[in-house]
């Protein structure tokens, strides 16, 4: 009760309290695992659908986890118009990012210059990841996303440069696998801490609400 009253900070704290659960990290970790697994699946002659399945599992984990673990522990809130506008901007940015990635990919595969192909898409991917994650971090007040954007961008560049310079087949898998594992570990630790810090409330909580 001794904290200072800063309304912007109260709103920010209320909003960002939902990011303490680690589900964003787990989701991103599984999405990166899809990229890491691409070459491995190819090596074993397995379909790309397996990779897509892992990424889908990440999104599903976040949606179900938020609903069954976060909300029952944290409570439910409807934010004000200003926050809703910021979230709309994030949705718009993500849509533009997906369109940008698709266009970049199409330009790359339609280009006749093979050497350019090998570097253009990774650079576009890295810049896109860093910029989009930075914008999302800003609008969502979710500071860790700055770091994750840089991590994803650098992973793409390092993996691709390693592959181009050495021809090592699993270069991308190792780099993205390491990033993926880091995110999954961070997410798991955050989730454990969240569950410990916010146990399920006693049944009488709702009854106390008159």
């Amino acid at each position, binding site marked *: 009760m001794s904290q200072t009253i800063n*309304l912007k900070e*109260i709103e920010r704290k*209320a909003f960002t309290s939902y990011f303490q659960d680690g589900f964003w990290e787990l989701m991103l970790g599984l999405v990166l695992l899809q990229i890491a697994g691409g070459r491995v699946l190819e090596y074993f002659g397995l379909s790309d659908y397996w990779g897509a399945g892992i990424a889908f599992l990440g999104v599903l984990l976040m949606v179900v986890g938020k609903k069954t673990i976060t909300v029952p522990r944290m*409570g*439910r809130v409807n934010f004000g118009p200003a926050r809703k506008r910021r979230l709309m901007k994030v949705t718009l940015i993500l849509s533009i990012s997906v369109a940008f990635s698709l266009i970049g990919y199409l330009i790359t595969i339609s280009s006749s210059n093979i050497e350019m192909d090998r570097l253009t898409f990774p650079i576009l991917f890295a810049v896109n990841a860093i910029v989009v994650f930075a914008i999302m971090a800003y609008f969502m007040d979710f500071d860790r996303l700055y770091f994750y954007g840089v991590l994803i961008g650098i992973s793409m560049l390092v993996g691709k440069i390693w592959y181009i310079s050495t021809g090592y087949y699993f270069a991308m898998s190792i780099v993205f696998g390491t990033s993926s594992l880091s995110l999954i570990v961070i997410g798991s630790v955050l989730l454990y801490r969240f569950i410990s810090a916010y146990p399920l409330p006693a049944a*009488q909580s709702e009854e106390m*609400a008159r």
Partner: protein
Amino acid sequence: MTQKSPDGAIPETGQINKLIHEPARLNIMACLFVIESADFLFLTRQTGLTDGNLSSHMAKLEDVGYIQIKKDFVGKKPRTMLSLTEQGRTEFQLYRANIAKLLGALPDD
């Protein structure tokens, strides 16, 4: 609750809304002011108040018409959503303005 002070005039301490001024209720009002609505659990998490404490302060704020409590069901589970009324929002803004004027008028040292 509070007499409106003329523009620019420094309010007297007696004009400060005592119902909002109580720290726990100030915390609840501030939390509800920055959002649209929240359930009981979210408010206990954000304010750090116990269930009983929050419940009694909510009752006082509801009695004077500063907050409204809506009950509905999510599936089979009951849900209690709380939000500031227009009156509550106005009173909180007035409280902020009065406190800022009152404390702003104090000399620096």
